[in-house]
Structures are given as C-alpha cells and as structure tokens.
C-alpha cells in the first residue's frame, strides 16, 4: 500500500484543470488508500511504538516566491515549466502527505499576499503557529524590496517563537537561476547572513534553490531526512546489506517524490567526487518519469518502472522497486557475478525493510502478524 498520496481535493486546488493529464482519476487502489487515511489507526499494543507521526510543516514567504511551485514539483509530479500555470494561493492550501516510516506531513502552503500574511499574524495567529514542526520560509532572490521581506520574516519568526519555540526553521533563497552564475555565491551569502541575524533563537538552515535544477531536491531531501522516524535503524540495515553485496553505495528513494531518504556508502563510494549526486539522481529519475508517463499513458503518480539496470566497465548499478514506499539504488563494482548476487540479496532483504517502512497496523487483530503483509493490503 503506497504511503504517499495526495488527497483528491488537494490536487484540484493546485490544478487549473485545463490540462488533460491532471487531475488524475484516482485508481481503485488510491481510493482505498484515501479511505484508510481517514480511518484513524486503532492503537494496539503492537503498533503503539510505531504510532503515526504527524508533522505540521509551514511553507511561507512572499506571494510569487515559488512556494506552490516547489510543493507541486516535489509532491505532485509537476515539472518546472508546469508551474507557470499555477495561480496565487488563496489563504492556506492544506495537504497531507504520507511518507516513509509512518510519517505524515501536514503541509500548510500559505498564500503570501499581504492580506493573508496579516491575517495569519493576527486573527489566525494561534491556529497557524501552534504545533509547528517545521517552518520553511521562501525568499525570492529577485525581490525588489528585500528589507520589507526581512520585516515580514521577522514578524513570522516572532509568532513562531511564541507558539512553537521548538520548531526547526529552513530558509530557501529561491529562483537562483535568475542570478548570473558568477554572482550567485556572493548574493546568497549576503542574504543568508542578514536573514540569520533576524532569526531570533532559531537556528535557520539555509539553502540556495531553483526549480530549474536539482538544488530543490537537495533542500527537500535534507528537510525530510530530519523528519523521518526510524532512520537510524534503516541506515544501519542499509550498511549491513551494502557490506554483504560489496556495494559502493546504496540509496533509498521515497517512491513518489524520489527524494533520497537514506543512504550508505563504502569507503570507496565515499571518494566519489560528485557530491551533489543524490539530488542529481532524484532530478534525473523524476524527469524521466514524466517521459514514461507520457509514453505509457499512465498517470504520473502511478508507478512507472520496476527495474533499471546499467552495466559499464567502471561500475554497474541497478534501481529496483523495493518496499511499498521505496526504490533501492545499488552501485557496484563491475562484473556479472557481483551484479547477480547483489540483486538476489536485495530481494531477500526486502521483507526486513518492509517492516521498518510499513504503515501502522489498522486493527489490533492484524497488528501482531501483518508486518509481512503490507504489500498485500
């Protein structure tokens, strides 16, 4: 059962419905999942330790800064150019994104026009700013009035420290593609220094992002990485598997956003000079999914491929459907035998990971035995 899904009402909000491929008619399976989401899990002794983890994520920033664009690319299979047809967000768009390891993100995409911002800070103050797990604040690099942006940010931070002092704060300096390449670093550093000085007691983590390259995936993968429960265990298990199959590197992708949620590299794998490889891979695969979806005529949110194999003289690699919610990428030294052994071992390891990744059990009677059945639900 896929953990990741976008409720139908959410798709309608962000789509201008003139496009032919979306909103997608949910498959039977998706509809079933919708039902199961509304079903609040009944706590059982077994499922208790893995209780569903909900995180409220605020996505804020000036109108037009690109909040809905990035959300649609990461979570709704848009490509960059699709975002041109997004309208301004009215008030708050709420979406519930089920993610790896029982994590549900309650994503609040907060329309950034002045009237809305004032409203969040006054009438809706407590409603918006309490119980926040993460604030992602987007700054438009092209903004003509950065001082004003800073003032607004400042007010948001004040409200956040009042109601959710324990929240994590991420600042995205966005639309970096619009800056001439040789000036990017300087401008970015200047802005970040100023913003951080206005962040109160929060330790704001900065990213330079653009929807036109992989930088967006880097930011979101790191944000998500900080949120997923059980990751320590998953990482340890990946390492054990990696050593057995002689892998140079293993990556675990969330199956729908294709963000890298966990990874392991051998001592050799760590020497790879391409340091932005995770986000590049996310970007490559996500883009190719667009092509396969056009080719097969299946919706972009549907599963697009089961297996990718690549064998070269210098390395081999496969990416395969792994657990219900993940794909596994394995980088190996070249050689047919190594390759075949690794594939076999990964298939065997699947059930162990399925357990870590699976959603909380819905009823007490199945809770005790159902861990291996997740894929059959």
């Amino acid at each position: 059962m896929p953990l990741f899904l976008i409720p139908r009402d959410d798709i309608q909000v962000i789509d201008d419905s003139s496009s032919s491929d979306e909103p997608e008619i949910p498959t039977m399976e998706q509809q079933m999942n919708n039902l199961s989401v509304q079903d609040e899990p009944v706590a059982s002794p077994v499922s208790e330790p893995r209780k569903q983890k909900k995180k409220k994520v605020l996505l804020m920033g000036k109108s037009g800064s690109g909040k809905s664009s990035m959300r649609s690319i990461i979570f709704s299979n848009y490509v960059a150019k699709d975002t041109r047809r997004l309208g301004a967000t009215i008030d708050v768009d709420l979406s519930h994104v089920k993610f790896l390891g029982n994590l549900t993100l309650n994503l609040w995409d907060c329309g950034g026009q002045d009237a809305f911002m004032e409203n969040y800070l006054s009438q809706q103050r407590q409603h918006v700013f309490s119980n926040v797990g993460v604030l992602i604040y987007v700054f438009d690099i092209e903004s003509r009035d950065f001082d004003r942006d800073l003032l607004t940010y400042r007010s948001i931070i004040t409200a956040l420290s009042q109601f959710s002092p324990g929240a994590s704060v991420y600042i995205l300096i966005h639309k970096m593609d619009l800056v001439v390449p040789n000036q990017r670093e300087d401008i970015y550093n200047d802005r970040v220094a100023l913003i951080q000085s206005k962040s109160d007691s929060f330790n704001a983590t900065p990213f330079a992002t653009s929807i036109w390259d992989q930088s967006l995936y880097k930011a979101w993968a790191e944000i998500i990485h900080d949120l997923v429960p059980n990751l320590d265990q998953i990482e340890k298990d990946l390492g054990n598997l990696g050593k057995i199959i002689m892998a140079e590197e293993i990556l675990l992708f969330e199956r729908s956003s294709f963000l890298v949620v966990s990874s392991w590299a051998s001592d050799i794998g760590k020497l790879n000079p391409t340091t932005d490889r995770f986000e590049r891979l996310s970007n490559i695969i996500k883009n190719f999914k667009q092509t396969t979806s056009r080719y097969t005529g299946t919706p972009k949110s549907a599963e697009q491929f089961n297996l990718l194999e690549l064998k070269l003289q210098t390395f081999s690699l496969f990416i395969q459907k792994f657990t219900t919610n993940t794909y596994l990428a394995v980088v190996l030294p070249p050689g047919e035998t190594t390759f075949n052994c690794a594939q076999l071992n990964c298939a065997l390891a699947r059930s162990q990971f399925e357990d870590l990744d699976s959603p909380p059990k819905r009823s007490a009677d199945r809770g005790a035995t159902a861990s291996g059945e997740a894929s059959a639900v």
Partner: protein
Amino acid sequence: MENRAIAQKKDAATAPAPAPGPAAKGKPRLLLMGQRRSGKSSISSVVFHKMPPNETLFLESTARVQKDSMHSFMDFQVWDFPGQLDFLDPTFDLDAIFGEIGALIWVIDAQDEYLEAVNRLNSTILNLQPNYPNVNVEVFIHKVDGLSDDYKLDIQRDIMQRIQDELSDNGIENAPINFHLTSIYNHSIFEAFSKVIQKLIPHLPTLEAMLNNLCRANGFEKAYLFDVLSKIYIATDSSPVDMPSYEICSDYIDVIVDISEIYGWARPQSYIEYLEGPPWNHKLEDQVACKDAESCIVLSDGRRPIMLREVNKYLALVMVGKEGSYSQMAMITENVGTIVGGLLKAFEITKARK
C-alpha cells in the same frame, strides 16, 4: 560510456574553429540562417551543446559566423550565422560558404512577423539555384511551442505557398525544400535535425536493413541508432517513427549518460587490484559480460523493456521491446551484440571509401 560523455563534452568545448576553405574539405556543413533572434544560436546550443532550453534566454546576438566542428560518427560542421549578415553581398565568397554544404537550414520565428524572413529566404534560394541547385533547403518554422496545432498548420501552409509561388514565378520547379515545425522546448528540434542529417549519411539503406532485421528477429517495436551527444537518430527501422517512442528512447540516453557521469569516476588503482585479485582472479574486463555499456529499464506498464546498447564512442542503439519480453533478455542481448558488429562494419566501409 562515461568516458565518452566527458570526452565529447571536451571536444565540444575546446574544438578549435576550423580553418575556412579547403582545409575543412570532406566535412558536410549545416548552415543556420534566418532573421535576427529567430533562434539559430539557441538551436545550435541546445542540440549540439546540451544547453538547457531556458538558458538560451541569456544568449547574445551573434556578431560573426560561429563555426562548430562536430566530431561524431561522421565529422560535420555547424555554421551559425548572424541574423543581420547579408552574405549575398558580392564581397562574400559564395563558394567558401556553399561549396561543401550539406544543408541550408533557414530558421523562421513563427511567433513573429515572418514576411520579411520568407522574402529573404526566397531571394537566397533564387541566388543559389544557378550554381548550387542541389543544396537541400530545410525550413525550420521555429518557436511553435505555445501555438495551437491549427495555427501551426496554417502558418506552414502559408509559408509553403509563398515560397512555391515565388519560385515558380521564376521558373523553378521541384527545388529540394523541406519544412519542419520546431521548438527547442521539446523533441521536435531533435527530430528535425535527425531528418536533415540522415540525408547526409552514406549507406543509410544498409543501416536501415540491419535495424529491420533486428526488430523482426527479436520482436522489437522500434529500434533507433542514435548519435549519443546530440541525440539525433541517424537511422531507424522502417516502421513509422512515432514521437512517443523517439522521445522515450532519446530521454533514456540522457538518463544513462547522466548516471554514468555521476558514478563513472576513476576508482583508485589499489581498489581495482583488489577487485581483480582473489577470489576472483580475473581482470575486470573479463568479469563483465559485455565490453560496451548495456542498460535496460522495465516499465511497470506491461513490463515493457527499453534497452540501450553502446555501439562505439559516438553511437548507441536504443530499442523498445515487446510487452513482457524481459524474460528473454539473455537471448536478446546476444542478438543485439551481433547486430552491433554489423553496424560497426558498415561504418568502417564508409570510412574507407572517403
């Protein structure tokens, strides 16, 4: 293949401008001409230098002829002309420009007024006809992204009519002129170049016959022989080309080249020695099943495999398999290997004759 991607990038970046005139003999030339801002430099950057389309917004107007030498399965040149240049001016040595020509590509901005562009094209053709009657004129009706299908066809009909009228008024019939609807924002520009370049390839029928055999023997729905760097296909089997299969095959090349770049770095010698030592005791090249890159992706829809096989430094075969044929992969891989041998021979013959 990872080395290839890097080597080709270098080629493209550092290739010295070829000396004009006879030194460049034997290399067909593709001339890009048309009005200012019609998109000539964008086309050349996107197709031959892998520039992402949205970055062409930063391109500056071309001040003098940009000559690019492409070293690929065959060497050819791309000349990008400044829009304002009137090369029919008698001070230009027409023979130096049109002598070795492979094709004249005339770019027309379909989102702009195009009458002036069509008039200039007409006078160019009329000027060339007496001395160079066999020059292939390829008209790219360009920037058709954002135009409705009906409107595109209307424009194409109108432009064709205007050219035909002008030529027949001057007593010219059956001049070799072809029309393509193109945009750098989708695959149409690559498709158009594929058709232009195929006309320059010797032994095209031989290549096509081999690809037909390959498809028949293995039940492939489609097979393309690609130039990896530009993603132009230089031959395909004789079943009709459909955009979706071209698109997925060409995008798959991107996927493989990109992944190869990420993981194709040179491993330390000590690691390689370890991999070749006990218990394997074989050179790495003997541990792999195939000396060239091979790859395959199995689509969830119908478990249809798409396969890629490196042919040489420049070329790759990409094939769309039948639904459910992944289980016969081992045999298919063998068969593909045989065809690759044949293709390589065909290219050797081509070289020897030159």
